[in-house]
């Protein structure tokens, strides 16, 4: 444990120096130079003076993330990503020194709302980010909207959050809410189209987690699959957090359709894939398909080659080959000695979108309409590829990758087999 921490500290030191070099202006670098000759005190004073002369007013960000209960690791990952982004930027966005207030939503809408109210009333944050679970995003929607606080959703994927809905039920879009993750439509519908049209799959049986998001994913997949001539032969649902998946997988095996579409994530996905193998479904010719979370890093780290052959769709994969992803992975690995996951990417892009918008407003957060317009205009290359917001809904427009799980040299990864460009949520 000691050794690991020392190594981490050393890495941290190195990255901080690198970050410093990246973010400092040439003048600051020049001011730093004499320190090697021994005149440390005066150079430090010069640096501080230079910084004080240019720094804008402090910027307060509120991050509402789960740090306890089932989604704790997602919150940890998103916090790591946020911290890293700020570190690389010398802890400043648009020249404003940043303070991030992290609050734990504990996977409870009431707690999430209480903490959101704290951001609004007490901390008076300039911008809020975060939220993993869709019910919490829906719960805080009205509070955020009526406080006119800009909020960037960095995970919760319920469709309604960026759509116009009847009576705003269960939720609806708001000019103040942006999303840098996905809508469940985006990770579910395209793979349905893809399987029917490109893979020539005729029939699919669906098996999803029995809660709002699973049901939504199942419905969106069905739309995409059936509109291209596919047929759903049946469906099965498992309660969220089921202890034992073997009875369900036994039922999958007892029906004849070989292609299964699933939405599960985290521990459920692990148990599902393990049961799938224990009961010999691959040998019996069954094929696993699903929305990307079924085979994300957290799951593959546990099930490894047991997931081989599964086809899932997501807007990112750790193997995605582009310069931004490489830079992101390198920086993240150097800092934490860990591969980033999709949650880290979502949080990273939340910071990146905010950063760019703030640069456009020259750091101004007081004029909300100006900041909203700036966010709407943001376009950048994310680790996931080209990223921009749909101006009507504030949901991202992004490419969707079809990925197949393969194991090579002891590494189990999602290899990219196809891409569907610029997927936009149909919400208005």
């Amino acid at each position, binding site marked *: 444990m000691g050794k690991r921490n020392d190594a981490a500290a050393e890495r941290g030191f190195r990255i901080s120096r690198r970050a410093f070099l990246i973010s400092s202006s040439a003048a600051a670098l020049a001011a730093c130079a004499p320190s090697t000759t021994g005149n440390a005190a005066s150079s430090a004073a010069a640096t501080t003076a230079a910084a004080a002369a240019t720094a804008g007013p402090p910027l307060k960000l509120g991050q509402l993330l789960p*740090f*306890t209960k089932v989604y704790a690791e997602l919150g940890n990952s998103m916090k790591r990503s946020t911290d890293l982004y700020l570190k690389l930027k010398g802890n400043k966005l648009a020249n404003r020194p940043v303070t991030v207030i*992290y*609050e*734990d939503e*504990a996977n*409870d*809408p*009431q*707690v999430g*709302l*209480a*903490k959101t*109210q*704290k951001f609004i*009333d*007490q901390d008076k944050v300039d911008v809020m980010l975060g939220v993993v679970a*869709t*019910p919490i995003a*829906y*719960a805080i*929607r*009205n*509070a955020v909207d009526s406080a006119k606080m800009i909020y960037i959703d960095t995970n919760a994927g*319920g469709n*309604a959050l960026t759509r116009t809905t009847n*009576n*705003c*039920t*269960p*939720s609806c879009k708001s000019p103040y809410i942006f999303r840098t993750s996905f809508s469940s439509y985006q990770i579910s519908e395209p793979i349905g189209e893809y399987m029917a049209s490109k893979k020539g799959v005729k029939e699919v049986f669906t098996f999803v987690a*029995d*809660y*709002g*998001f699973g*049901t939504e994913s199942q419905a969106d997949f069905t739309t995409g699959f059936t509109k291209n001539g596919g047929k759903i032969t049946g469906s099965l649902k498992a309660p*969220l957090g089921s202890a034992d998946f073997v009875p369900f997988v036994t039922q999958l095996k007892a029906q004849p359709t070989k292609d299964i579409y699933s939405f599960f994530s985290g521990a459920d996905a692990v148990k599902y894939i393990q049961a799938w193998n224990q009961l010999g479904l691959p040998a019996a010719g069954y094929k696993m398909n699903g929305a990307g979370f079924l085979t994300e890093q957290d799951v593959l780290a546990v099930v490894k080659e047991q997931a081989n052959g599964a086809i899932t769709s997501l807007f990112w994969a750790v193997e995605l080959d582009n310069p931004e992803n490489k830079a992101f992975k390198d920086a993240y690995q150097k800092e934490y000695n860990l591969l980033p996951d999709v949650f880290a990417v979502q949080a990273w892009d939340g910071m990146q979108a905010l950063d760019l918008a703030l640069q456009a407003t020259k750091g101004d957060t007081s004029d909300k309409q100006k900041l909203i317009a700036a966010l709407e205009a943001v376009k950048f290359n994310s680790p996931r590829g080209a990223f921009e917001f749909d101006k009507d809904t504030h949901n991202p427009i992004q490419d969707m990758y079809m990925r197949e799980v393969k194991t090579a040299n002891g590494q189990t990864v999602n290899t990219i087999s196809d891409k569907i460009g610029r997927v936009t949520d149909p919400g208005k």
Partner: protein
Amino acid sequence: MSRSTRIRAAIVLAVWVALATFPEWSVAWESSRFAAGIIRQILIFAIFASSLNLLVGYAGLPSLGHAAFFGGGAYAAAIVAQRLGTDELLVSLGAAVAGAALLALVVGYLAVRAVGIFFLMLTLALAQMVFAIAFQATDLTGGSNGFSGVHRPVLLGIDFNAANDLYLLVCAVALLVALLLWRLATSSYGRALVGVRENERRMRALGYDTRTLKLSAFVLAGALAGVAGALSAYEFRFVSPNDVALGTSVAGFVMVLIGGAGTLVGPIVGAAVVLSIERVLPSQLPAQMVLGIVFIAFVVFARQGLVGAVRRAVRA
């Protein structure tokens, strides 16, 4: 009224007035608005915990399904107000009380035949079924995504939409519930409940219909939990299956125990302690571990809850 009762009444009234005017006298404090929100939530859970205390502390019925009535009341208030298109307080609050009481009648009818841990597990099981309905009846409750867009109520033209007005409403209801429970605890009915807790057989021998007595307490406690649930729906403008879930039942139970079961002030103190740790403590601290350590410390150092400890200290 005896002298000590009058002194107590004066203290309660003074504390209540101080609390009810908190948003006014704390207005210069930067955390005033946030603190007022937390106090509202503490009072809502104090009502919830006090209603459960009627069962756990007085009647000796350890219910681990009380969230069914809290959440049931919240859903009833939200759904009825929305379906009828009215924000009238008496309508939604009435629906919450009626809905929760009815639910408590059904659950209680089935559960009061069992005692001790069997009662505890039966209430847990029946509440989990209510949870399953809330979670799965998406058309009615919004399912796992929750029921959003609950309006804050109006009463005789007074709009409780502003946070400070809602604050007054919550304070007023909390006071009424506290007074009701005070009356109950000192009445012959309250003494009969304690009698059932202490020795049910003896009470039966004395001619009490103990089963009806227990059921009536169960329904009354359920109705009051429904009041808390309705207030929670107004406060958060959102109802979710979490409000019906085991976690909420356990939270209520724990609030009763750390404050001191069978005392009137105990559950209020318990609600304040638990919610402060969960919602005010900085998130860098491990809230669950703090909560656990606090529970252990209460048992080890403050036998019979905080109130018991204070009483002993006063006597000593």
